[in-house]
């Protein structure tokens, strides 16, 4: 399940300083991730799901929550 994998990745690699685990619909861009984190997440999904995040996919709405990232992955890998 994509959401679960993303949550695990973010939990260990990015949101390591959080007391509570991240929820799928929790906002990522209001302090949870900085600009380098977003790029790391891009590299992770590109490697893990063998897809390319195009310039025009790299938008706040696609990285707003884990659910949004998972939706992006599904869109890009199904088409």
């Amino acid at each position: 399940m994509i959401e679960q994998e993303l949550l695990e990745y973010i939990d260990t690699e990015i949101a390591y300083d959080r007391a509570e685990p991240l929820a799928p619909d929790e906002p990522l861009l209001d302090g949870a991730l900085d600009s380098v984190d977003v790029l790391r997440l891009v590299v992770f999904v590109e490697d893990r799901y063998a897809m390319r995040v195009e310039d025009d996919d790299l938008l706040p709405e696609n990285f707003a929550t884990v659910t949004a990232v998972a939706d992006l992955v599904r869109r890009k890998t199904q088409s």
Partner: protein
Amino acid sequence: MTAGLLQVLVREAAERTPVAPAVRHADEELTYGELAERSSSVAHALHAAGVARGDRVVLHLPKSVDAVVALYAILEAGAAYVPVEPGSPAPRVADIVEQCRPRCIVTWSGARGKLTPELCRLADVSSIFAVDDAEPFEDLPVRALTMHEASTAMPVSSPEALAAEDDLAYVLFTSGSTGTPKGVMLSHGNALAFVNWAVDRFSLRPDDRLSNHAPFTFDLSVLDLFGAAAAGACVTLVPERLGMFPTRLAELIERERLTVWYSVPSVLTLLTTRGNLGARDLSSLRWILFAGEVFPVKYLRELVRAIPHARYANLYGPTETNVVTCYEVQEVASGRTEPVPIGSACPYAECVVVDEDGKVVTEPGGQGILCVRGRTVTQGYFGRPDETAAAFVPHPLTADGGPLYSTGDAVMLDGDGNLLFLGRHDHMVKTGGHRVELGEIETMLFSHPAVGDAVAVAVPDDVLGSRIRAFVVADGVSEKELKAACALRLPRYMVPERIDFREALPRTATGKVDRTRLLDESIDAPFSVR
């Protein structure tokens, strides 16, 4: 009229062009008239709160037009602003507050919980102005109110506080190798020597629109904010989260019709590689300025190709000196692989290259450490006379005019009279333009009881300059826990992206940790592959 003070730039612009836009951010805009009046009334409120000439006021809040009002108000009140990034963890905020002992803190409700009663007592803070909601601070032993409440009945004319150009204007905290950040003190005169030069060098004028991408904690913001004010131009604050999305940044440049862009190179690299620049009308850009780290030349070349009509300049200088050299990029030859020079000395700076024997380097090809004196050079580190003394070296040729600030940057003189940046001999590195002392990270790792040995290395990275990685000898602690421990005190960009556990760290023949070997191993095993 008091000449030689930064806030006078706004007052003068307000007299010349009161309705011209001064600051823009998201959907807010302030004219020079509004900025002058609002910052003056907040300055009166700061005086009423006990702030006096020579005091410090901490500015701990996200970017907004209110943050700029507060910044000028602090200067109008005769005090120095001490910016602290909104994302800073509580202990780091406490470190800085304890060191600089501000009379007042201007903040926002997001700082809830970071400012504690103990801290306010210890640092002798008497009031807190919140730009949004003061309720989170009402239980603290201070006078807490909103900036609006504090200033609403105050006069809108300048309080004309007594001040001189040697007074501190701001204190910028940077990474310190011993484990706590150190505050670089900069005066109005320091800032203005640079700002006046920049206005002239880049022909800044009233119809310019400058970007402000850097946080206020970063001295790149000095050009954006005060350069704009000196020219009577407008500065557009780039919203923090936009920086994550290059196509949105490109859109902002187009929409705001920005004419002068100034940022670290890594942001420009992302714009170049992921900003889809071809789809945008960026014809408004006159100057693209960059500083803070080496711009990989292949991306600079691509950027020049994408935005050919703009002029480009590489600015150089640590926080302690602000910009002291400048190089205007003429063309980036297709075969060039080495970075463009950092250029030649700005007119207010004496740049001296001192070699290992303490001799001044004057011949092309000669190498040494770049040492600087001049009007932009800091008076030193706040409350740290020993570190201040250690940062300066005697002038090898003359004692007149005082000692030189030693940047620690190794440079080479080329045949055209320009300086080339070579690197550093110590453990200070740059990541995304941020200055990082590896020793500060190691101190944090060592402070964890489970850690027996630790070293941090900077792995070269195409976009960010370098990425931080650490190796530890530790039992009974996870990587996640160690990172979390680091994040308690360090800003995010200093927390190692990856921490590897070892039985023992490799040593050199002299018994030191073999950083070179660990670095080579890191380069062979990239971050994303486990």
